[in-house]
């Protein structure tokens, strides 16, 4: 048996891993997961319907690639991924507080930051597991409508989309984790952020779109659909390096601020 150093908290990585294992099962097998899995799989259903319809009407105007691009940009990046991040990440600590189980974690010799790290890691694994397969299945369902001849050329775009989806979940997740540790009721502000801030500011001229995460995420998508509405942002595709810097920065700042708040606040007042 290895001797434990009882003068210090359990090492960060070991503690975070322990919290991750405790959190993961509860996060995966939850009602929230059923709802979010259904939401993220909607494009798969749409892709299947498209296949069936296209088989009957070969002269359809919307190409499979075009539809796929629209689903990635409009459905996943603008709607489903931010919403998934909102409902999981704001609940990371709130669920433990409401369920009164936070006490068990707070009365262990571990730093509070490791609790947050473990929970966030569980969030990332859960949401990636739900979202990425849905994107992949949508892609293959649509791109094989006319056979597999053009599939090879589009696969790099799929890989890029998967990377952007992962970045979206990380960046929105960090932001909503911050909301969750800061506010007692973070869902309404989060919804306003997704459906007001992220939806309308990208349509503003000049530098205004740069205060949204959407601007950077959509700039990273290569196969933008031909028509994206009135959004000005599509006229200004931001450099990839800048996008990565900003998105990674959002993750670091969001998680850093969340860790600081969580480690200094009291959370068991009502228990």
């Amino acid at each position, binding site marked *: 048996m290895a001797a434990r150093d009882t003068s210090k908290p*359990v090492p960060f990585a070991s503690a975070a891993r322990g919290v991750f294992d405790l959190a993961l099962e509860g996060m995966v097998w939850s009602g929230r997961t059923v709802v979010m899995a259904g939401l993220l799989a909607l494009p798969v259903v749409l892709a299947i319907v498209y296949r069936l319809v296209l088989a009957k009407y070969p002269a359809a105007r919307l190409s499979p690639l075009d539809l796929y691009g629209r689903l990635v940009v409009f459905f996943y990046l603008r709607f489903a991924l931010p919403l998934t991040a909102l409902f999981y990440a704001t609940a990371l600590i709130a669920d433990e507080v409401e369920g*009164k189980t936070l006490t068990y974690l707070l009365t262990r*010799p*571990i730093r509070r930051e490791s609790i947050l790290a473990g929970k966030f890691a569980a969030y990332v694994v859960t949401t990636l597991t739900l979202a990425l397969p849905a994107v992949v299945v949508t892609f293959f369902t649509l791109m094989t409508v006319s056979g597999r001849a053009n599939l090879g050329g589009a696969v790099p775009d799929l890989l890029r989309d998967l990377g952007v989806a992962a970045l979206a979940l990380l960046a929105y997740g960090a932001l909503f984790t911050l909301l969750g540790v800061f506010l007692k009721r973070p869902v309404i502000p989060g919804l306003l952020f997704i459906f007001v801030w992220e939806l309308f500011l990208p349509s503003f001229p000049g530098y205004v779109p740069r205060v949204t995460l959407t601007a950077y995420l959509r700039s990273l998508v290569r196969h933008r659909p031909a028509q994206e509405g009135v959004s000005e942002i599509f006229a200004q595709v931001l450099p990839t390096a800048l996008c990565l810097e900003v998105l990674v920065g959002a993750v670091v700042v969001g998680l850093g601020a969340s860790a600081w708040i969580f480690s200094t606040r009291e959370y068991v007042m009502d228990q």
Partner: protein
Amino acid sequence: MSATLEFVRASRWYGQVIALNDVTTTIGPGVTGLLGPNGAGKSTFLKLASGQLAPSQGEVKMLGRAAWGSPELFHRVGVCPEADAFWEQLTGLEFVTGLLRLTGYDEAERRQRAENALHEVALLDAKDRKIGGYSKGMRQRVKMAQALAHDPEVLLLDEPVSGMDPVNRRRMVDLVRRLGRAGRTVVVSSHILHEVEAMTRRVLLIHNGRILAEGDVREIRDLMDEHPHTVALRARDPRALARVVVAMPHVISLTFGAEGEWVTVQTARPDELYGNLAEAAESAGVSEMYSPDENLESVFRYLVAG
């Protein structure tokens, strides 16, 4: 007595509400009962002691360190919270081993320790069942197991026997007493006097956020015995009983219950009442007797008013 836990002029308020008010006390090895009615401040006291809350004013020290912001203390401290809250999808064994992992034990040791702790609370047979399917008493015991499993020097137990059946309550009381005898510092909160009395004679009386008294539980009993005491008696012939009782000089009042069989007596000297009752009880056919004053709330009302 060496101080394991020390409160120095510690206060805690939530907004305008004072939960704990200027508390100074030290607690050392052995079992200490934290006794008070619901809402007295017992849970706040334990949350301050376990560093889950910071004092608004004053100091709270556990094992010589500030309780707030010292997570390393939990290598040596075990906490059994009051709330009936769990990750319901886990089995009892997974729950205890998962928390032992966060205490830094390797896989083999955490399994061994978890099984020992579950055995200690008589849950070993149910270790592979999900906590969601446990009875109230089993849930209470698995909560106790996670507090014990890392063999801590200090145990903070918030209403640990609440919801347990008499057999397991007895077992838990014995366990707490054993831990106290082994030199552990055990702080047990309860709002039931006889529950605490079964575990220890050292108590802290807490009421409205203040430590009202601390010392031997017998002194509390003495205080109880001096305050007007109510006894309810069920008799075959309540009128005969009333005739005897009302003649006793220490009896303050007597009332008949609505159902006709019950007589409620208020006395200034409960010991004399109990002594004098033997003869009357036989002639009037007393079949049941209880004291509503066993409720702590009435003791506190009396002490505070006095």
